[in-house]
């Protein structure tokens, strides 16, 4: 049990009569890259909102980084990172100022902030734009920066909600390199995407269909089980 970062049992969210997330049960191991797949409206975002403590569950239980998602939200939030499809950096602050702000919010010391800022800028090779306003930086770079800022405080797990939507294939590839680096550092990655080729980069994949988790396993397991040649086919078979 110790090395499980997410444990969810019968996690459910109802909005009136509509069940957005319907009794999902799964777990995610530490250091794993966990792909959370599903069509639009399948309940992915609702599930992430519950797991990050911004939405209460209707029933079921879940622990993330060891904390109850409904009862221990503050501790939970200190130990997770989050990057949404909506852009999360402040456009009217510079790269450095954004890092400083989020570092401060997560309780890093001044010294830590300085070190981490240096590391981040060096890793992304962005020293030439460190004092540029985010609004003047191209989208692909912004996504990489947003991801790096989301793991600045070295969380146990980072949630990525469609992080690569709207970026070109090369940037996507680079983005996935950053994800691998984070996973090697021991940060668990929980990622939603609707690019099926990206699913193939994940250690394990789950598939949401109409609020239910229809399948979970490694790429090979899923391909074998559904007798498919790639994830596209698995997706089509399950979604039907």
């Amino acid at each position, binding site marked *: 049990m110790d090395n499980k970062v997410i444990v969810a049992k019968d996690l459910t969210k109802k909005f009136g009569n509509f069940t957005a997330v319907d009794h999902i049960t799964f777990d995610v191991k530490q250091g794993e890259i966990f792909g959370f797949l599903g069509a639009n409206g399948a309940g992915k975002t609702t599930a992430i*909102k519950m797991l990050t403590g*911004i939405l209460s569950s209707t029933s079921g239980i879940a622990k993330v980084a060891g904390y109850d998602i409904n009862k221990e939200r503050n501790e939970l939030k200190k130990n997770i990172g989050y990057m949404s499809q909506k852009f*999360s*950096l402040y456009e009217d602050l510079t790269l450095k*100022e954004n890092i400083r702000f989020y570092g401060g*919010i997560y309780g890093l010391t001044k010294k830590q902030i300085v070190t981490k800022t240096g590391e981040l800028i060096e890793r992304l090779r962005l020293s030439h734009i460190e004092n540029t306003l985010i609004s003047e930086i191209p989208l692909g770079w912004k996504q990489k920066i947003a991801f790096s800022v989301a793991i600045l405080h070295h969380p146990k797990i980072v949630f990525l909600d469609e992080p690569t939507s709207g970026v070109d294939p090369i940037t996507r590839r680079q983005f996935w390199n950053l994800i691998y680096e984070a996973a090697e550092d021991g940060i668990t990655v929980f990622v939603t995407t609707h690019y099926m080729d990206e699913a193939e980069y994940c250690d394990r994949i789950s598939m949401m269909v109409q609020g239910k988790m229809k399948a979970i396993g490694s790429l090979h397991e899923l391909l074998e089980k559904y007798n498919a040649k790639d994830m596209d086919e698995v997706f089509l078979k399950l979604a039907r």
Partner: protein
Amino acid sequence: MQRIIYIVQKEFKQIFRNRMMKPMLFIMPFVQLAVLSYTADFTVKDIRIYVQDQDMSPLSAKLTSKIKASDNFTLKDVSYTYDEGFNKIQDNEIDVILSIPEHFSRNLNANRKTELFITADAINSTKAGISINYLQNIIHDFQIEEAQSKGLIEIKPGINTIKRDWYNPGLDYKFFMVPGILVLLVTMLALFLSGMNIVREKEVGTIEQLNVTPIRKYQFIIGKLLPFLIIGVFEFTVGLAVALLWFKVPFLGSVGVIYMFTIVYLILVLGIGMFISTITDTQQQALFLAWFFSVIFILMSGLFTPIESMPQWAQDLTLLNPIRYYVEVIRLVMLKGSSFASIKVNFLVITLSAIIINMLAIRNYKKTA
């Protein structure tokens, strides 16, 4: 504490990076203070008067020239007919007609009763009332002067009223209005800046990111409130300097008392703004709500119209109006030199409201979707 400091730093950077913000903070309020203070004048000057003189006597000419000599009246025309004057009222060329009847002089000299007739354009009823009042004063003075010159009245030692206008001996309306307008500007600035702030993060989408961070709600609200409190106190200070140095408004009370009250008051107004920000989804909605409140607060503040002349239910409603309390306090402290003891009730009301509204804002800011 550390988190609050980081939020404050971020807010200041964003405020000063906003292109519209600098003129909004450093130019607009002072233009308003300067312009409004000269225009919000309730003394009625240059009342345009037409005299219908059917008497054509030296006495009626004397009365006419007395009116002409007055600061408040501009004599537009004198003639025999009433209709000419009435047409002029219709064409908005004059404000008041004074009709002096035939035999005015004869009747007065014979010590018989005589009547003068005043017609006023009462579209602006306040102005009409004041004009008639001024005119009656002139006529009254005229009457006494005439009577005295004929020895009809003896001046006896008796009841003699002597007028002293305390706290504003020159009856300078600016002393009364400038502190009030200063209150208004500080209030508007604080209400709008804070009202638009959190909702902006909602519109841009950054609030979603903040909601998954371990920021506590109170840290968030305090971090948002502090920068505007500092700006508000700064604005007040500059405005106060303008009031004292340019308009020469006296300052009899304690600077400490006025600043203490201003800070608590600002926390209240900023709290109202924060509350608006938490219940709205777009800056447009927040703007409309802020307008709704500011118009009601301003018109029911006692700044432009005395609270005592409002209907009872409206007077009761003004008890919920923060501007009312602040206008009262700033006038009392600046012009009357009142001490803390005499503004204690206002201070308590504002402090209590500030605590309540900020708690509401904190409670209402949902970190959950």
